């Protein structure tokens, strides 16, 4: 059994944009299915051909990946943020007409899915609902592209802070009939704060916003409960994080920072995948160089080899600074774009091989 999957029910693949997270998540899915698991890969925004390969192009249903012949079963799904958010609203809004009111609110329509942190929220929402259904042995989550890997963990907290800090309460009664927004402001003596907000944004904005928050106030309890449940799932010993990162000095520093932060948060980082680290032709140990009359070919070869030898040094430093219980896998650059089942299997195979070393 490959250790990545040992005692693992949820595997969260995190990393900044452009590092090949989705591809790594999909090949881990294949690897798990080969091991006999019933596994689901939840993706965010797969490239077209990868979506075709997984059989999920243009659909957001949980779909059995076509053309597989594994001991286990491989399923995949694209998370539809708008749909997940709307579904959450409908569940959370106690009366159906208030759900309709929110869904029809101009600001909600325009911006519901652009609330910062909302993609992270919907990803976790979807992950949790599948997790709760207990339909799968293993769920692999491919997280939204963020500038920094750590953003994914901070985002839901930002969103729930909005509710725990009681912003909704502020906006509950913009006319100030009860001790609502204005009343509250007056009472607490922070009338100035509102004035400032109004001078920055204008009264129309405040009114729209008040309407928005008034309508979503009823989510508060649900959202907070959900945040607690999701957090419990994320810190559970059966949930493991896999950091996917590319290879350059800044990215490695970020990975080290991430590894420290994630530990501080009580999460379990088990794997680091360094993707496209070195080209597949490279063998740094070998001295056999071959011969060619062409000066440029020889020069290009030696320049690239020196370049990657320098990077190897950076890598050694990186690995020595990581904690011992984190496995690091190095994936070579295969030149081609991996998007078919065969390519994903090949990538999975390399990860499995890496484990034996």
């Amino acid at each position, binding site marked *: 059994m490959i250790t990545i999957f040992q005692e693992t029910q949820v595997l969260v693949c995190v990393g900044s944009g452009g*590092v090949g997270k989705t591809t790594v998540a999909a090949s881990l899915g294949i690897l798990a299915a080969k091991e006999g698991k019933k596994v689901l890969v939840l993706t965010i925004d797969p490239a077209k051909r990868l979506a075709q390969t997984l059989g999920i192009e243009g659909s957001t249903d949980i779909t059995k990946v076509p053309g597989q012949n594994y001991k286990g079963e491989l399923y995949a799904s694209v998370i539809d943020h708008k749909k997940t958010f709307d579904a959450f609203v409908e569940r959370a809004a106690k009366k159906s007409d208030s759900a309709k009111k929110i869904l029809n609110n101009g600001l909600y329509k325009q911006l519901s899915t652009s*609330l*910062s942190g909302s993609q992270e929220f919907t990803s976790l929402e979807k992950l949790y609902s599948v997790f709760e259904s207990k339909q799968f042995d293993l769920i692999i989550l491919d997280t939204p592209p963020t500038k*920094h890997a750590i953003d994914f963990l901070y985002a839901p907290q930002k969103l729930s802070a909005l509710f725990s800090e009681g912003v909704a309460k502020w906006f509950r009664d913009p006319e100030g009939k009860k001790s609502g927004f204005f009343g509250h402001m007056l009472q607490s003596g922070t009338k*100035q704060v509102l004035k400032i907000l109004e001078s920055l944004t204008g009264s129309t904005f405040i009114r729209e916003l008040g309407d928005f928050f008034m309508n979503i106030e009823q989510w508060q309890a649900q959202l907070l409960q959900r945040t607690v449940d999701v957090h419990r799932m994320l810190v559970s010993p059966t949930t493991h994080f896999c950091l996917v990162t590319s290879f350059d000095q800044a990215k490695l520093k970020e990975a080290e920072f991430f590894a420290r932060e994630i530990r501080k948060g009580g999460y379990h980082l088990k794997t680091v995948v360094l993707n496209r680290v070195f080209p597949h032709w490279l063998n740094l140990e070998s001295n056999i160089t071959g011969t060619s009359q062409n000066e440029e070919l020889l020069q290009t070869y030696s*320049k690239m080899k020196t370049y990657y030898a320098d990077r190897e040094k950076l890598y050694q430093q990186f690995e020595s600074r990581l904690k011992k219980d984190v496995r690091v896998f190095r994936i070579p650059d295969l030149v081609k774009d991996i998007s078919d089942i065969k390519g994903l299997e090949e990538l999975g195979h390399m990860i499995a091989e890496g484990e034996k070393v």
Partner: protein
Amino acid sequence: MKQEIHFVTGKGGVGKSVVAAGLALRKSREGKKVLLVELGDQSFFKDFFNEPDVAFKPRELKKNLDVALWSGETSLREYAKYLIKVEALTKLFFENAVMRAFINVAPALSELAIMGKITSGPRDYGPLVPYDCLVVDAYATGHFMALMRASKGMAQAIQFGPMGEQSRSIDTVLRNQDICHYHIVTLPEELPVREAEELKSQLANEFSLRPQVILNKFLETSVPLATLKEAQKDATSDLGRFALYLEQHQERQRGLYQETQKNFDRLIQVPLFFETDPWKLVELISERMV
């Protein structure tokens, strides 16, 4: 002289930041006073150039070249200070727990604050940004479109008041191609090229903009195919395997180059430099930013 603003974007991992630094260095060498702007809470250039710190307030990197890190919160804070003028009130506003929570997630507020700050020079609004040229190391594709759409969306949603007015004026500047220049960085690889094309169409359809493309890390060699084939005969040697790699790489690269050239008005090719020293690398890239 009118201020020029350059946005550098592209798929994650294509080398946007380093290209942006190259462009900024180039502009500074042309005699302009340049500010290289990073977005968000964490600085890439701090680690990259090994600087002690990169923050909201510009810091000098080289002659005529400064760097700053602008986030939604810091931009908004400065803007509020400018409007309110009383430090104590600004503090009261930003240190209020509810306000902090709100600012963190408010729809498009952070994007709007950042874009407001970037375009404040041409709009002649807010604190002075005393530079001839801003080079913005912007967010990756998807998030970049969120930045672009924030002012447009807000201008539509909010008709009246300062929020609406500001949004409209930001949107106008962003569409003015005498002021704002858009650069999409890509690699000679399939996915980044696809994403660059998609972004180009979105910018064209939604904002009538014509971005230029920067094809980064292009392997510039001219080893004849026959030589590569010859070297491959020794398939067990490193050089043989390398020759095969080079052949495949060049073939793919050529195809993607032609496709990219067809799709964009202007294309800049930046070679793959085997250079690990940050400033030497940025120097080499800047020479290509014509």
